[in-house]
């Protein structure tokens, strides 16, 4: 084999090697670090940038930060929720457009807003199994450069036209075209089975659990205040590279106040019996952005002289039957977390940081409300009583999606890298590694949650 050939030896960590077919010992998967571009409100600085542009920009920043030029990474996985059909190989194309070795394999993944966290968990599992030594997880979304499809009518005509063999056949196919067929089909945020937007779904849950306007505005206020403080403290200096002139998330309002938030008019839940409480201030805006996370085995990180911030301990996915209202659309994490903690012998009191994705302020509050509810704990979670309460001082301490914005598939990577850095800084707590919980809700009534521990 020539000197520039691909090494045929397997993973470097010998503990992962065993006889064919034998069960291997699991090893740890660590988060080395992350990189994202600042998130931009839709229609802003990244309006003309494609998903591939943004993912490549985030990737190139990660490559530069950790010296990965020409490196053959075990696997790269990322995805986008709003995706053009031409982007079928989005992640591989971004890899080819990056400074990584062109011999780095990649795949796309899509699980709505849980996409980013699921790439972290899937790749971490491959590392734990010894299938790969290094990986980059990520996600990207553009609400500005969203795909627009042709109408079903036009699409059928075009396909049939392609199959038509003679001129009369073609004319016959074309004669089926009607003016309404020329209207384009833009993607929406509506759930396919209910026709309700995500905001309207959350409004149902918000009303069901009596989440107050003041409590929602407080979550939003804290998000902005915490994110601004984190920027001021330089927390994001090694988590972010500027892009298209942005150095901070453009949705961040450093000067927001509870009074200002209180003046905003409700936008969701206006036709419900209960008071409408969800505003543009306590809901995430449509956002553009990309994030990446570098994962590795401990041996790989050591061999490359790279930091080890945190281990990916475990993850869990859940889904709820939201279609006819048994549970709220965004409530799946409320079920995933109790299962995940039970499997790991942990309670909410065993965590130092909680990263609960702020799709809406009310999503966070509804999740906390059901965990504190005795009846919900007994009848829905099968527990003796309420699942538990979290210390609010440990919740989204460096801000979350309400302030940063939420480019759907990019949120998981943002949170994983942020939490890993916070855990590493905290080190040990009460004689054990600092521990963090990530909870992300997703369209389709899904949710993915994970546990990270400090290294």
């Amino acid at each position, binding site marked *: 084999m020539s*000197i*520039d050939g691909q090494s045929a030896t397997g993973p470097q960590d010998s503990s992962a090697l065993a006889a064919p077919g034998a069960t291997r010992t699991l090893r740890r998967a660590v988060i080395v670090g992350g990189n994202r571009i600042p998130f931009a409100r839709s229609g802003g600085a990244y309006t*003309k*940038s*494609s998903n*591939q*542009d943004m993912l*490549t*920009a985030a990737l*190139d920043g990660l490559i530069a930060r950790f010296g990965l030029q*020409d490196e053959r990474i075990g696997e790269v996985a990322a995805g986008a929720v709003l995706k053009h059909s031409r982007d079928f190989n989005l992640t591989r194309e*971004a890899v*080819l*457009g*990056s*400074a990584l*070795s*062109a*011999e780095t394999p990649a795949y796309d993944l899509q699980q709505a807003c849980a996409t980013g966290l699921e790439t972290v968990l899937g790749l971490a599992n491959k590392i734990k199994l010894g299938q790969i030594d290094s990986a980059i997880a990520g996600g990207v979304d553009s609400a500005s450069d969203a795909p627009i499809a042709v109408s079903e009518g036009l699409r059928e005509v075009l396909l049939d036209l392609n199959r038509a063999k003679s001129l009369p056949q073609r004319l016959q196919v074309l004669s089926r075209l009607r003016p309404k067929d020329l209207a384009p089909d833009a993607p929406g945020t509506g759930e396919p089975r209910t026709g309700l937007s995500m905001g309207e779904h959350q409004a149902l849950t918000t009303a069901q659990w009596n989440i107050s306007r003041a409590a929602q505005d407080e979550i939003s206020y804290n998000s902005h205040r915490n994110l601004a403080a984190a920027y001021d403290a330089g927390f994001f200096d090694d988590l972010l590279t*500027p*892009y*298209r*002139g942005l150095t901070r998330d453009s949705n961040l309002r450093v000067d927001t106040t509870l009074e200002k938030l209180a003046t905003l008019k409700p936008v969701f839940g206006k036709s419900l019996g209960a008071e409408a409480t969800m505003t543009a201030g306590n809901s995430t805006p449509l956002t553009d952005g990309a994030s990446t996370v570098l994962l590795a085995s401990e041996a790989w990180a050591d061999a490359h002289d790279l930091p080890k911030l945190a281990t990916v301990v475990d993850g869990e996915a859940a889904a709820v039957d939201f279609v006819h209202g048994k549970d709220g659309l965004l409530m799946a994490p409320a079920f995933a977390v109790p299962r995940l903690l039970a499997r790991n012998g942990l309670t909410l009191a065993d965590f130092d940081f909680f990263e609960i994705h702020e799709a809406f302020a009310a999503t966070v509050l509804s999740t906390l409300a059901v965990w504190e509810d005795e009846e919900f704990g007994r009848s829905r979670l099968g527990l003796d009583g309420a699942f538990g309460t979290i210390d609010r001082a440990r919740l989204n301490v460096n801000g979350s999606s309400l302030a940063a914005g939420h480019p759907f598939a990019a949120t998981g990577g943002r949170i994983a890298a942020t939490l890993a850095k916070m855990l590493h800084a905290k080190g040990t707590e009460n004689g054990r590694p600092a521990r963090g919980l990530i909870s992300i809700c997703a369209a389709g009534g899904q949710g993915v949650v994970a546990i990270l521990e400090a290294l």
Partner: protein
Amino acid sequence: MNTVHPVILGEMPSLSKLYLNAAAQAARRRVLGTDNGSSLPDASHEVRGVTADVAKLTAYQHLIGETASDVLPAGYIHALTFPLAMSVMNRDDFPLPLLGMIHLSNHVEQRSPVLFTEPLDVTARVENLRGHRTGTQLDVVAEVRGAGAPDIRWIGVSTYLAKGMFLPGIDKPSAHNGQTRHEEFKAPDPTGLWQLGVDTGRAYAAVSGDFNPIHLSVLSAKALGMRRSIAHGMYLASRALADVGPARGESFGWDVEFDAPVFLPGRVALDISTAQGLHGAWQGSDFVAWNPRSGRRHFRGSVTEL
């Protein structure tokens, strides 16, 4: 060599005005038959504090096949400096007609990456007037520095031919100096195939600002004596550079020699061969492009480590 007199312009000249002026000048010279001498103007034109327009940059990157990063593609910097280079060739004391000049070759050194956010000082001058077996050729040199900074970040040397123009005192090169040598071109197996639509020239004109009529439409090209419109040479060279990809790193040399023009619409076959050193590190890429039907070579060049 003469001392170069710097002329500082307040802003980047408008290419459309330059083309109009060049057309008027050509008509004037035809009527008056003025003699413009046999020497190049010794002035260099300079514009300070030039910045790239991010919307145009993104459109350029997407058209050429570069990822829309914050680093200016080397070909984009060429487009940025082009109006200034044209303004030197548009001077009254420039001895050759600007319209109809043929871009023979282009040499670029991207010495360090330039971000779109950086204000730049751009200079352009002409030099090296010399004979060609079919006319007279010269070099247009453009340099880009960070605003107020001494180091050259990007330098481009574009060689143009005024076909059929012979100036007194400028000799044709003798046959043995290599310019008349016709080597046989044998097309290799292609690594890529470009389908160029009839609007390729208009699309590149929109992102580069170079609205030379020979690139825009069949009619406008015919008005200037072409049988159809042709692709911009720098569009083709920039796509080849993009195709070499990020392996080239952030500083590199980029050379291209143009042969037969690419008529639009058309197909272009391309071969890129890359030399790799130890551990697969990139050392350089050669590229050549040809017409897949006739086998005529359109252009060839290389991207090399600096």
